[in-house]
């Protein structure tokens, strides 16, 4: 009883030091946004937001980040499965390589993409000769840059979920006659569902905010490669109101998606 009481009291009164430090941590996130909000040109906002620089950038960011997420699903999930389920030599190396874009400065990633997929690049040269497709300075280049930088989030989360999944459930389903496809659809995917969704959200969010690899690999042209972050960067030096308005759009869209998805999907986490 006594022990219970003191335990209860301790939980009622949170340790001051932790709360103070935690609040400083929170301020690190809040203060910059307050600074941004303080600069928003509210009265001119509708006009600025309707300008074609803003609408082009928003549309391009939406399209390219969603395409990058789709590509990540198609090739990233199988990669995660390979890493989680196939026993092969060099798996730690593969895991390291997949994690690398999370650690590398995106500019380095962009330069690497340029040297590999540029028109004088290792692969890019033959790619152009074979298909006529030129990635740098094209919208596809933005998608590739986004995918490179963002896909690790999906691969890592899904791989972790697959490894923690008790394979006996899949085995039981298979022994009851379920086909591989049915097992994947009815057992594996539902069980890793929350991680999958979390990975997708993180991937999309990272792609939506991608800057360094995009400007290095795909360049900067309104309507073709100038995504929201690039438009913010360019506008910061010329037209502060537009830059702030664009930043506001990024914050609102990102926050809406993250909060909205959290309500609907992340509860399972």
């Amino acid at each position: 009883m006594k022990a219970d009481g003191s335990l209860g009291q301790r939980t009622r009164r949170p340790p001051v030091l932790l709360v103070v430090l935690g609040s400083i941590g929170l301020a690190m996130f809040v203060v910059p946004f307050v600074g941004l909000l303080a600069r928003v040109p509210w009265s001119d906002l509708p006009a600025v937001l309707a300008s074609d620089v803003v609408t082009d950038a928003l549309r391009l960011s939406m399209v390219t980040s969603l395409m990058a997420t789709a590509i990540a699903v198609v090739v990233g999930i199988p990669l995660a499965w390979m890493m989680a389920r196939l026993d092969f030599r060099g798996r730690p190396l593969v895991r390291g390589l997949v994690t690398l874009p999370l650690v590398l400065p995106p500019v380095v990633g962009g330069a690497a993409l340029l040297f590999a997929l540029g028109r004088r690049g290792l692969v890019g040269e033959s790619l152009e000769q074979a298909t006529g497709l030129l990635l740098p300075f094209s919208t596809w280049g933005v998608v590739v840059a986004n995918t490179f930088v963002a896909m690790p989030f999906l691969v890592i989360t899904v791989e972790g979920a697959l490894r923690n999944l008790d394979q006996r459930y899949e085995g039981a389903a298979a022994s009851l006659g379920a086909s591989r496809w049915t097992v994947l659809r009815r057992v594996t995917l539902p069980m890793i569902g929350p991680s999958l969704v979390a990975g997708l959200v993180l991937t999309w969010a990272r792609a939506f905010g991608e800057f360094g690899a995009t400007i290095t690999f795909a360049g900067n042209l309104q309507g073709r490669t100038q995504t929201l972050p690039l438009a913010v960067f360019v506008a910061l030096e010329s037209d502060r109101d537009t830059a702030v308005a664009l930043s506001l759009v990024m914050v609102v869209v990102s926050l809406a998606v993250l909060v909205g998805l959290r309500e609907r999907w992340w509860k399972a986490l």
Partner: protein
Amino acid sequence: MNSAARLLVATFVLGAVTACSGSSVEGELLVSAAASLTDAFAGMESAFEDANPDFDVVLNLGSSSALREQILEGAPADVFASANSSNMDQVAEAGEISGEAKIFATNSLQIAVPTGNPAEVTSLEDFAREELLIGLCAEDVPCGDLGRQALAKAGVIPSIDTNEPDVRALLTKIEAGELDAGITYVTDVLSASGSVEGLEIPVEMNIVAEYPIATLAGAPNPDAAVVWVEFVLSEKGQAILTSYGFRSP
């Protein structure tokens, strides 16, 4: 925690003492310089530090417009060297410079193409060819502004594929052969000689860029800032700049 607090106080006191120790020029000097000055100012830095071993010159390089924004937003810097007057004027109008800005160098434009000139670019006219990959600096960056002025003088409407954030970024993509042509400064072509070729732009279409320099009102190290500006304007400084392709004003 006590000892940490004591350490903090000691640091402040020490800092105050050093700050009050008078006019001896030493310590760190933060120079915000236009990206096109990258190599020239690096050369200047090593010459300066050889002469003044107590100095540590820190170069903050970027497009002049980006540097201007940093200064206007209160980022600490001792000296601002801009690639055009308009960015310097805006900093001056905001009361952020001490004294007057002085022109310390001039530069002119060249067409930069990858070695071997694979797209066979010959003049500004080629910037209208849609099948080429053409890059310029972004409109608000000095090299982008000047490049557009030159194209306008030549009566060419360019088919642009990318607006690079600064001249070095543009040069890198030309060096890599990813762009067929761009407009940069003569000095940039010189610094990248070997991987980039320069094509002259006729005088009647060319624009001369004037580079102003000034010490900043909020300079953390104002004495050193003055010494650096004097060095840049001195015969020795001018000789260094000339060796990198700049011209004396």
